[in-house]
């Protein structure tokens, strides 16, 4: 397992956001975490990437414990988190945003290669390299957030609701690209409210409800699951 999470509890002050969350991500797969608003999806990603400290439980990445390892120290180990809301550096150019993706790397040629690859994946960014990132449309910003993360050459990419607020054809495009990224060997842990699309691209899925994992299994199986259908797929 590339990532395994054991029995995680997270509290915000007195509020318990996660109770006993366990999940596993196998290398090479897309694993999705679905659930309604406030279910604890973002909190799970933040606990994995070290942005918040869990009160109980363990996170193992690539055979080593990373519980409470700060986020910045995980990037060079190959774990990159694209936070909810994209986290674009609005007053820096698209090009500078991409450079920051490679902040932890020093292999110039490798960076140039990955940059080229990211721009091939998102040709729209190439046309806007010198533009301030804040002037991009929502979809372009999401592309930039993902492209930037790819420049860290992650082995595990954590994506928090990449389709949020995007027009339907852009949602389609983003999911196609997530699959493409996975095709080149990057493991993806995808958090989504758009359960339909997420289950369509993922290999495995976990359903989160009020801070607990209530269901898990192969994505195709959950797509057919009557409870999941009723709760998250609109019937």
């Amino acid at each position, binding site marked *: 397992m590339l990532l395994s999470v054991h029995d995680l509890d997270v509290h915000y002050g007195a509020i318990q956001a996660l109770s006993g969350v366990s999940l596993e991500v196998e290398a090479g797969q897309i694993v999705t975490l679905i659930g309604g608003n406030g279910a604890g999806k973002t909190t799970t990603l933040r606990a994995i990437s070290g942005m918040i400290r869990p009160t109980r439980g363990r996170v193992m990445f690539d055979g080593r414990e990373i519980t409470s390892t700060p986020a910045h120290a995980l990037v060079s180990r190959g774990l990159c988190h694209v936070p909810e809301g994209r986290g674009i550096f609005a007053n820096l150019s698209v090009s500078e945003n991409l450079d920051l993706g490679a902040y932890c790397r020093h292999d110039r040629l490798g960076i*140039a290669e990955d940059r080229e690859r990211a721009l091939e994946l998102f040709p729209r960014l190439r046309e806007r390299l010198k533009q301030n990132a804040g002037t991009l449309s929502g979809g372009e910003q999401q592309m930039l957030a993902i492209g930037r993360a790819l420049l860290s050459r992650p082995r595990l990419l954590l994506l928090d609701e990449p389709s949020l607020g995007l027009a339907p054809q852009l949602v389609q495009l983003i999911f196609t690209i997530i699959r493409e990224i996975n095709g080149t060997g990057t493991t993806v842990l995808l958090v989504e409210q758009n359960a339909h699309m997420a289950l369509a691209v993922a290999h495995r899925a976990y359903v989160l409800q009020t801070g607990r994992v209530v269901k898990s299994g192969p994505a195709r199986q959950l797509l057919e699951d009557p409870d999941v259908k009723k709760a998250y797929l609109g019937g």
Partner: protein
Amino acid sequence: MGEGLEQLSHVSDRAGVGAGMIPRWVAPCVVVAFAFVMYASGGFVGDYASRVMLDTGIMMIAAVSLTIVNGFTGQFSIGHAAFMAIGGYVSGWLTYYGLLATLGRTTDLGAEHGWLLLPAAIIGGLAAAGAGWLVGLPSLRLRGDYLAIVTLGFGEILRVLLQQTDRQRFSSQEMSEVGLLGLIVPPDVGGASGFESIPKLTNLAWVYLMVGAVILFAIRLKYSSYGRAMLAIREDEIAAESMGVNVTRMKVRAFMFAAFFAGVAGTLYAHQPGTLLRPADAGYARSFDIVIMVVMGGLGSISGATLAAIVVSLLNVGLLELADYGAMKWRMPIFALLLILIMIFRPQGLFGLREIWDFFRSRDRTGGGR
């Protein structure tokens, strides 16, 4: 093909300065300006004008250095004068008692002592950077406005502490009576009446050499991958962290860089002819002047802060000029009005986040004014 080359040049930018960022004419302009100042310092400019130029230069150093914290990393430090005071008092203590012990006097120095300013400035800067570390480390860990509160408090505490220092010793004989330890704890720097007769080593050449140094440092920093990480913190801390930037460490470093150059500015101020270093120099009144310059210049704009330092300094001079007509009591109202007008008409400051040379470059960076 051309695209590929451009990419490579972007990558090569990471290591050091984006040489392509700054147009070629900037360097010659700096050289000409520096040559002019050197020439001017040779007596071409009168006492009064050179005094104004010294004050202005010192404020330029203070403003550009504060830009590294408030402009690059987006933190809000409002106690910069305290770090100037630390630099000034520490270096002043060293040069004053050093010369008193070795030479028996601190005034009427010949040109052969001029070099002393360089080690004084470096030690003053390091002392201030050390203080910056102590103040910055606990307060920069936390998000929010802690830094503003802590830096403001630090300046006021320092001011009160400086008032409690021992009286100054005026002869080597007195010095040997109290001993080295006596000179240090508590420091014999004159308390509330100020620290007199610090050797007057500051001149225009030194000041503008340091102005050049801090501007060059800030520019190199801004266009390095290090500086870009600082800008990223200003834009979005969480995203910066998720790119692998150690946010706390980077903020503390920015704070220490800024404190270092504040210490240098303080050293120049302490050794400037015609000034008396006083505890009030650490307090908020002076700090606010520096904050005003940074805000006025545009957050993160090095050239903006430089220009604003000139504007504010000249405004101060103008008001001083009209002091006989009661102009000084209008100082704060005028600054307040100026700030309000800027906030209304140019909330992003004179240059916004841009540099003066960005205005001469391609226009494709749309929306760059913010």
